[in-house]
Every structure is written in structure tokens, then in C-alpha cells.
């Protein structure tokens, strides 16, 4: 199906709202699960948007900006997953892979901004030194406007202007390639989880990773909440254990100090 000019504009406006939120991280409406749902709503296929949101959110579960790496952009990935699935009539899981180049394009644009926005710092410093609050506030709006507009432009070009070439590309893809993209969509969460592990995993936490894995493999359930509760049980046990340990250590230290004092007195 085709995306109309009006739908393209609405997607661009939505990309600006979600993009600004992505920049500030305020409401977290920049996560794929929300981005896909609203994009689906704009295109008149809410259900497909929600399904795509669930799948894309999982693919991005571990791809977080924490820990120093900027992941492919979730706003563009969410929008383009729904757009590609809608315009080419393919499964959202296959569309995730095709949306990634757009997500990476936005990622690189943001990386350029992260470096080049240092150019504003001398002006900020000058206004700070002058105590010029008005100018300082105004200057803060500039990067936000640049980022917001970039999201709108990139989303409009990707969703509306590129739909023809995209359709040609998808139509020319042989079955093994589309099936490969579908498989990749299912495996992709592994990348995010590996990134989380890189930041979080220490030898002492390995038992908990295995615990969660084994429980989830053995017990059938529809979401991760039960396992989260198992984790919470261990977290609570460990919390009280650490608190007790802290108290004991403090007492031992106290005793040591007292003993030393006593020993010196005895010596004299």
C-alpha cells in the first residue's frame, strides 16, 4: 500500500515529537513499542503497529545508550519497520532488518551532532561569564531545534520519498533473502543482550544469569514477570545480607580500635 503525502507529513511530525523525546529522554515515547504503535495508527493499521512495536522493542531491548555506545536510533527503526511492512505487505519481523539502515543513518547523524555541538560551548561560556541568563536560555534552544528538525526531515524522506525505490528493492529480493531477514529479526535481541552483559556481567553475577535462563527455559509462561519475581527474591535476600555484613564489619572495626587502645594501655 502507498503512503499518502498527508500520512508522510503526519509521520514527520510524529518523528519530531518522538525525536525530541529521544534527545531529552523524558517520556520514553521514543522507544520502538510506542513509536511503532503511533505510526501504525497514522497509517490506519493499529494492530500491525502494535505487533511491530512488540517485536522491535525486543530487538532493541539491550541496545541502550548507557555504557557509552550510541545504538541505532529507535525512532527511525520503529517508524521504518511499520512503514516497510505496510508499503510492501510483508511481516513486521522481516521489516525490522530493512529498517536498520535508516536507524543507523539517524544514529550517525546524532553522533555528528554529539561532536559538533561542542562548537556552542564557547558561546555558553561567554554568556555564563556575563551572567546573561536570557541569551543562555535562548542558545539552549538551538541544538534542540536542529535535532527536532533533523528527525522530521529524515523520517519524511525515508517514509514518503523512498517508498518507491524501497518497494522495488523488496520485490526484487529472492525468498531466501527475505527469509534470512525474518530469521535475523528473531536473532537480533541477542545483540542487545550481549551488550547488556558486557556492561553488567561479573563472575559473581553469573549464577543469577544462569538462574533466569534455566527457569525461563523450563517453566512455560507468557512473559518475564515470574522470573523477575524470582530475581527480586534473590535481590532482597542479598540486600539484607549486605546490610548485615556492613553492620558486622563496622562492629569488628570498632572492636579492633578498642582492642588496640586497650593493648597500648596494658603495655604502659
Amino acid at each position, binding site marked *: 500500500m502507498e503512503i499518502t503525502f498527508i500520512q508522510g507529513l503526519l509521520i514527520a511530525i510524529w518523528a519530531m515529537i518522538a525525536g525530541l523525546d529521544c*534527545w531529552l*529522554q*523524558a517520556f520514553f515515547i521514543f*522507544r520502538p*513499542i*510506542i513509536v511503532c*504503535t503511533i505510526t501504525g495508527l497514522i497509517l490506519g493499521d493499529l494492530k*500491525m503497529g*502494535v505487533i511491530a*512495536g*512488540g*517485536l522491535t522493542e*525486543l530487538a532493541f*531491548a*539491550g541496545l*541502550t*545508550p548507557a*555504557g557509552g*555506545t550510541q*545504538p541505532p536510533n529507535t525512532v527511525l527503526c520503529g517508524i521504518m519497520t511499520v512503514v516497510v511492512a505496510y508499503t510492501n505487505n510483508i511481516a513486521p519481523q522481516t521489516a525490522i532488518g530493512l529498517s536498520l539502515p535508516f536507524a*543507523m543513518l539517524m544514529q550517525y547523524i546524532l553522533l555528528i*551532532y554529539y561532536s559538533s*555541538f*561542542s562548537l*556552542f560551548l564557547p558561546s*555558553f561560556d561567554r554568556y*555564563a561569564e556575563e*551572567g546573561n*541568563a536570557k541569551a*543562555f*536560555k535562548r542558545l539552549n*534552544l538551538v*541544538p*534542540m531545534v536542529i535535532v527536532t528538525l533533523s528527525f522530521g526531515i529524515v523520517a519524511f524522506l525515508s517514509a514518503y520519498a523512498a517508498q518507491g525505490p524501497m518497494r522495488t528493492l523488496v520485490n526484487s529480493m529472492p525468498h531466501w533473502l527475505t*527469509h*534470512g*531477514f525474518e*530469521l*535475523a529479526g528473531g536473532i*537480533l*535481541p*541477542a*545483540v542487545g*543482550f*550481549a551488550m*547488556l*552483559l558486557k556492561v553488567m556481567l*561479573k563472575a559473581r*553475577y553469573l549464577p*543469577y544469569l*544462569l538462574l533466569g535462563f534455566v527457569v*525461563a527455559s523450563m517453566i512455560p509462561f507468557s*512473559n*518475564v514477570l515470574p*522470573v*523477575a519475581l524470582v*530475581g527480586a527474591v*534473590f535481590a532482597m535476600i*542479598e540486600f539484607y545480607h*549486605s546490610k548485615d555484613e556492613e553492620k558486622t564489619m563496622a562492629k569488628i572495626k570498632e572492636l579492633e580500635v578498642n582492642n588496640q587502645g586497650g593493648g597500648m594501655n596494658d603495655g604502659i
Partner: protein
Amino acid sequence: MESKTNSETKSQRHSIFSKHEISMLGIRSNLVQSSFSYERMHAPGFTWAQLPYWEKIYRDDPKGLSRVMTDNMEFINSSPPLYPILMGLLLSMEEDHVDSQTIKGLKNALFGPMAGIGDAIFWFTIMPIVGGISASIAKSGNVLGPILFFLVYLFLFWTRIPLAHLGYNLGAKAIDIIEDNSKIISHVASILGLTVIGALIASYVKMKLTIKVGAGGAVIDLQRQLLDKIFPNLLPFAFVFLLYWLLKKNINPIWLIIVTFALAIVMSLLGWM
């Protein structure tokens, strides 16, 4: 002499900012990333968020305003959802006209540990749990998935307000609380987070072989008759650890995505998956 002026300002302290203004500080803490750059990270936004409050404190003291603005333009990078505590705490000290070197020292001592706690709680624990649960609801087309996700994060947005009050009311006392508990909290959050990640690997990484191998007349379904017999979800677990090992070798995450796609396409071409 100095202690006398200190106690005088302290007694007036809560008359300068209304409760509503402190709540607004929590809301304004969302501006910290407005002018993010690698050089000084959150500094310009961090300064902007607090600026109206300093304008009030230093209404008749342009030098004081310029001093506090310059001080806050130094590098700062912490966890966005925890900024309200830090800002509330710094504001109460600024209001008491605590020595600027002391305030700066505290700010620099706190933002690092707070980034650690914040990342452990918000990105590594809440995000996988909330994202995992709402995505598993959404996957079947149920709109309650995204609604649940939105409501949880709306609540987290709202928590910035009580956090700002907490920081402001505790003042310098907040420092001890943060320093005493930061290690235990990130330790406990890691336990919870890793348990959930273990479960997410088992539930959401989909790798199943479809290939059947003929061995002397008998046909063996590799997935069902071999891998699942050893341990269910063996392939996803092994693949995550392969990627983890590559990351430990400092390979760029983009390459991991490319490897994943290459593997999937080759498997599809061979008809193994």
C-alpha cells in the same frame, strides 16, 4: 561572623522557594540533555534547568549569578532520571550560600556514583523488565502492551518531582545516604537485572535449526533430537555468549548486527534454519 550569616540564611531558607517551584525543578531536570556534546556532556542543559532558581537567589548580585553559571558549565554526566536529587541538593546549598568550592566538590563527587546507580536501575533493570513484559503483550497485537509501557514511564517521569523535594529537603544529608547505599543498590539491581536478562535470552532470542541429517538410513532432526535433548535454548545462549566475547574484544556493536544478519542469511540460503 561567617557562621552568623550562615545561620541567618538558613532560617529563611524555605521562604525563598515555594513547594511548587521545587516541583518545577524536578520537571525542569528533563532539560539536562538539551545541548549534549561529548566535550562537557550535560553541562549546558544542567545549567539551564537550574538557571531561574539562581536568578532568584542572586537577584541583586550579578557577580554571584555569573559565578554560579560558570561553575556549573564544567563537565557533568550523570543518570538523567536522578538529576532531580542532585539539583535539589545543590539548590539548597546554593541558597544557604555554602562556599562555592564545597558545592563544586560535592557535585563532582556525586555525579559519577549517581550515574552508576541510575544506569543500573533504569537501563539495566527497569528497561528490560518493562520492555520485555509489554513487548510480550504487544506481540499478539494487544494494544495494552504499549499502554502499559507508556504508563510505567509516565510514572517514572512523575517521580522526578518527589526526588527533587527529597534532594532539596535532605540537603547535605543526602550525600551520606547516596554514598552509603550506592554500592548495595547497584549490586542488588545487577542481580535482578541479570536474572531477567537470562530469562529474556531464553524467551526472545529465536534460533532453531530445521535441518535434518541422514545418518545411515535414519533421519535425525538436529534441533529436536539433539540440541533440545542437551538443553533447550542452547543455541540462543551460545550465540549471546559468542557476541559477548566479541564485545569483550572491543568489536563495534555495528559489526555484531552485521554478523547476525550474515549468519541469518547464510542459514536461510543453506536451508538450515
